[in-house]
């Protein structure tokens, strides 16, 4: 049957998750941060879909779950960008480090 084992997919998911995470936590541009978060969600999707095929009880559920995650991700991005735009209007910056007036 399949020549690519489950673990390979999971490893890919893990790697992408880590990349996304690193990006989300180090990148300065808020847009990139948001995109990185999307990448993390996508990595989770890979897991879900992979489990859907190779899991304990293969079923369509995993794919459905992934679908919902995508919908959520889309909504989140939309809101994120909208907030960014509102912020940009007031602050004129997209640099995440400059968004630090609330502190201590």
């Amino acid at each position: 049957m399949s020549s690519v084992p489950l673990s390979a997919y999971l490893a890919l998911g893990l790697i992408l998750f880590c990349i996304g995470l690193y990006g989300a936590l180090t990148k300065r541009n808020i847009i990139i941060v948001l995109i990185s978060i999307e990448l993390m969600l996508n990595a989770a999707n890979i897991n879900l879909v992979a489990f859907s095929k190779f899991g304990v009880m293969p079923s369509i559920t995993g794919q459905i779950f992934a679908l919902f995650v995508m919908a959520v991700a889309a909504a989140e991005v939309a809101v994120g960008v909208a907030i960014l735009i509102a912020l940009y209007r007031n602050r004129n910056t997209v640099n995440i480090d400059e968004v630090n007036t609330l502190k201590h």
Partner: protein
Amino acid sequence: MDLETLLSFKWSIMTPEFIILGVITLLSLLDLFMAKSVNRKLLGWLGLAGILGALISLLSLMGNGPETILYDTFRLDSFAIAFKLLLLIGAALVFLIAISYEPKEGLNEYRGEFYYLFLAALLGAMMMSSSGDLITLFIGLELLSISSYILAGIRKKHSGSNESAMKYVVNGGISTSITIFGMSYVYGLTGTTNLLDMARHVITLADSQHIYLLGLAFFMIFVGLSFKVATAPFHMWAPDVYQGAPTPVTAFLSVVSKTAGFILIVRILMVIFYNIPTEGLGSMPLLIKVQDYIAFLAAATMIIGNVVALRQKNIKRLFAYSSIAQAGYLLVVVASMSAFLFDTLWFYLGAYLFMNLGAFAIIQLITQKTGSEDIAEFAGLYRKAPILAIAMAVFILSLAGIPGTAGFIGKLNIFMGALVVEPAHYVLVSIMIATTVVSYFYYFGVMVQMFFRPAANDEVKFKLPAGLGVVIGVCVFATILFGVAPNIALDFLQGNFNQFSDFFQ
């Protein structure tokens, strides 16, 4: 599935959700079609009526056994009812605060949205409390989160509000990713998203690798969700977001959203992870094994929340840290995993709801009046408005856990739960108590301002809006009532929810 099957389900158990959904629709349509000149506060009262309607319908649903629709994607067990009760009461009070919210630059244009986004968030929270399916829970969580992101940023001309929303959305996104990543493993190792099926599956688990992965998944889910309840290590966003967000939103985040987070944590933890054996059938559950980690996080949360609060000058920030600390106390409940877990959690969340919302109502009143969020604005409150000052004192005393208030009974519950188990969590309890004493410093700091310090200007007269008046009144009453006669609540719990025995059915 045809329509007939669809209609054969007992949709009536979803009445509260439908009511909220209906009101959301109604409000959005009304907002769209109503003339600009019409005061949108009307919508607020409408929304409040919706919440109260949902509350009534929820109460009427009480006392039945667990009912489920569509393979547990909706599930109404006593746990759900009990906690939804809190969510609805909290939301109703928040709504009252929101109706009286008058920020400087005006909110009139978005007031309609403001209200129904609250309702959307509430709907998400309600779904989080009454579903037995991971997907539904996740969607509920996201509905709550995304609505909250928008709410936090709804004062879009206010740079603090923007920043707060930005911080919220970025950190929320990360937390979502972490949670979903953990969930994907849980799904993968059980092959289902139905919590009870998962429980049935994992209970026979013997492969240590699977258990290990589930352990990792546990941590991811737990840390991801700790964002929602603002506990360590995912607590740092809270002060900034609370400070920047509009006060009603802060109140909402600190009470309703937090409650929902705990509901979700408890449900996932208790159903899935409590049933995972560590070494084959019948051995110690995984949850017990990681108990110490939770306890550690609880301790860290309490310490951070209470200690950093000492330095705060901004009242909203102060309450943010205070609510971190309170979340730490609640985490102690989770960490102790006693037989009293549900009762304790429910009672404390209830008490917390009243005392914190009451406090926020007063905070909103004062910050709005003076235009500053500095604690010093509370100076001389006793002179200017003695009743307000005494009400605030009641809330603060309750938060500090002084007898005679609901907060004390709640803490008593927590201590008992933590000590009644074997081995007892002496260290955790000690830390909790020690940090409580630390909290006296800042809580009583506010008291000192209100009662001891002279007011900067005695001119300011407080006009108490009806909404806030009701909130404060209800909260003072409830805080004292449940402090003096807690059995009203506890008997209610015992009498109507049958020890949450249907939780695992």
